[in-house]
């Protein structure tokens, strides 16, 4: 019944928009379109698109074999849901003309008035597509926190509401013209607050509201990843895609894109090392999962800072973020006792916070004259601004996510039953098995 309602909404809402007056194709306020920039951003859009399936691999390897398809489906279905949401209303709420610094208006609803005119130096619709990939990825990131227990229908509803009333406003605050965080002067090059802190906090709240997985605490052997090579494949593809994510956020094929690319690669490598060194010291062995986790922590950390910091600063940021995230996932999580299945908070939330604050320390006008100097370059004010942006993001996302999930739980169950959880989400929710071999080991 619910599924039918969702389908009706998805099918009919674009039709309604078709009946509204056609696009105006207004001439952009910006200059001419550059072929080089357009080519570059088309390629970056494709790279960022790849990150969502890559994330499905990264996550898929870490869940148990009975739930691998369910996490793939949660990631992939967002490419449908958010794509439609973005065109119909999401882009307009995020990047439409500003209302009070809080949200975009509905002028771009259904991409009305959004044509191929220049937005900066690229066609407006290319900017729409590039930003759409960020909205998709952010929602997909959250799925890891409550993996292995959420109902698929509840997940669809959650994603649609969350993207509309949490991601879109936040995106406007930080990146929209006139958004209040942007006006305050906070720096977020490619989405430290918008993408990573927001998904990390939403994941943490989600994991707490849904509760722990069955058997999380009482099975002696614990719940372990079923296929680490899948996770390593995912981490590698994420690293590749992230180049589009960060360098592309320069929105031009220029020097800023190059510096963003370089620091992205360097910070990920440095965090890879610092993570495995931390665990080597802690329990005696550097692990492959640790290497994959370190790469992602480094990429998250450099995301707000890319385009504003030097390669040496990026190395340093990678060296500190690895052990901090490792400490959260290995120790803090178990002390507090929440079941963030795939450490969305521990890596994206914590890594994003470290990155946003580090931007306030290491940002340099010498790297990017459109940025700002950080604490290290004599401007402590930026660190305060960054802290405010981080705090605002945490508070807003935490409260809104909590309200969304609690309201939803009045109308529908968020979790599968205990018996269904035992059987596995692949079979129960999707009617499929990922692997034909039913030996059951490590299920």
């Amino acid at each position, binding site marked *: 019944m619910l599924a039918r309602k969702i389908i009706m909404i998805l099918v009919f809402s674009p039709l309604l928009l078709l009946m509204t007056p056609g696009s105006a194709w207004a001439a952009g306020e910006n200059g001419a379109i550059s072929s080089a920039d357009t080519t570059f951003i088309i390629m970056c859009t494709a790279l960022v698109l790849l990150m969502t399936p890559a994330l499905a691999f990264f996550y898929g390897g870490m869940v148990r074999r009975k739930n691998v398809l369910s996490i793939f489906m949660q990631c992939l279905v967002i490419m449908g849901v958010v794509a439609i949401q973005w065109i119909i209303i999401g882009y307009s709420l995020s990047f439409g003309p500003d209302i009070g610094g809080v949200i975009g208006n509905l002028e771009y609803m259904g991409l009305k008035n959004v044509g191929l005119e220049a937005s900066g130096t690229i066609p407006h619709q290319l900017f729409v597509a590039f930003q759409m990939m960020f909205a998709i990825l952010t929602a997909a990131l959250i799925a890891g926190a409550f993996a292995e227990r959420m109902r698929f229908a509840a997940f669809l509803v959650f994603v649609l509401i969350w993207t509309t009333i949490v991601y879109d406003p936040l995106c406007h605050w930080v990146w929209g013209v006139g958004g209040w965080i942007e006006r305050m002067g906070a720096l977020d090059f490619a989405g430290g607050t918008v993408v990573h802190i927001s998904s990390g906090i939403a994941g943490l709240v989600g994991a707490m509201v849904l509760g722990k997985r069955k058997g999380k605490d009482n099975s002696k052997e*614990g719940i372990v990843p079923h296929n680490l090579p899948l996770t390593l494949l995912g981490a590698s593809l994420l690293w590749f895609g992230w180049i589009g994510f960060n360098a592309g956020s320069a929105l031009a094929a220029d020097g800023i894109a190059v510096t963003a690319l370089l620091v992205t690669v360097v910070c990920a490598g440095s965090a890879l090392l610092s993570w495995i060194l931390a665990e080597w010291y802690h329990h005696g062995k550097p692990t492959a999962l640790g290497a994959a986790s370190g790469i992602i922590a480094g990429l998250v950390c450099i995301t707000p800072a890319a385009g504003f910091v030097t390669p040496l600063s990026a190395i340093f940021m990678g060296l500190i973020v690895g052990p901090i995230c490792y400490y959260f*996932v290995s120790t803090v999580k*178990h002390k507090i006792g929440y079941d963030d299945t795939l450490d969305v908070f521990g890596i994206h939330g914590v890594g994003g916070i470290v990155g946003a604050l580090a931007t306030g320390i290491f940002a340099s006008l010498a790297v990017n004259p459109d940025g700002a100097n950080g604490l290290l370059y004599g401007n402590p004010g930026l660190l305060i601004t960054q802290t405010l942006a981080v705090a605002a993001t945490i508070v807003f996302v935490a409260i809104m996510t909590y309200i969304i999930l609690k309201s939803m739980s009045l109308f529908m169950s968020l979790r599968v039953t205990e018996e269904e959880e035992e059987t596995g989400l692949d079979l129960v929710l999707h009617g499929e098995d990922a692997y034909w071999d039913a030996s059951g080991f490590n299920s």
Partner: protein
Amino acid sequence: MKKIEAVIRPTKLEPLKEALDAIDVRGMTVYEVMGRGMQKGQTQYYRGQAHFKDLLEKMKIEIVCADERVDKIIGTIIEVCKTGKAGDGKIFIYPVEKIIRIRTGESGDPAI
């Protein structure tokens, strides 16, 4: 006739097959199994969290032979599979009531 079941270390399967070949034992059935015993388990770490792996991977082989061959085969298994450390495995011997070769219908020792 007897059935010999031996649970051994996975790394010992290939040398054992060779050694059994040398004493003209060809037929066997092999399984990948999980088990636990005196070797205890193994601690693994995932994102810094310790997981105790209770069941370890072993190979189990089954050989059926004539009564007088049993000691020779057991001797070979021990010779090849013994390292002297916990986890070398165990050998079990059962009486077999009847053996029938499906292709020919032969039964008893000729069917081995």
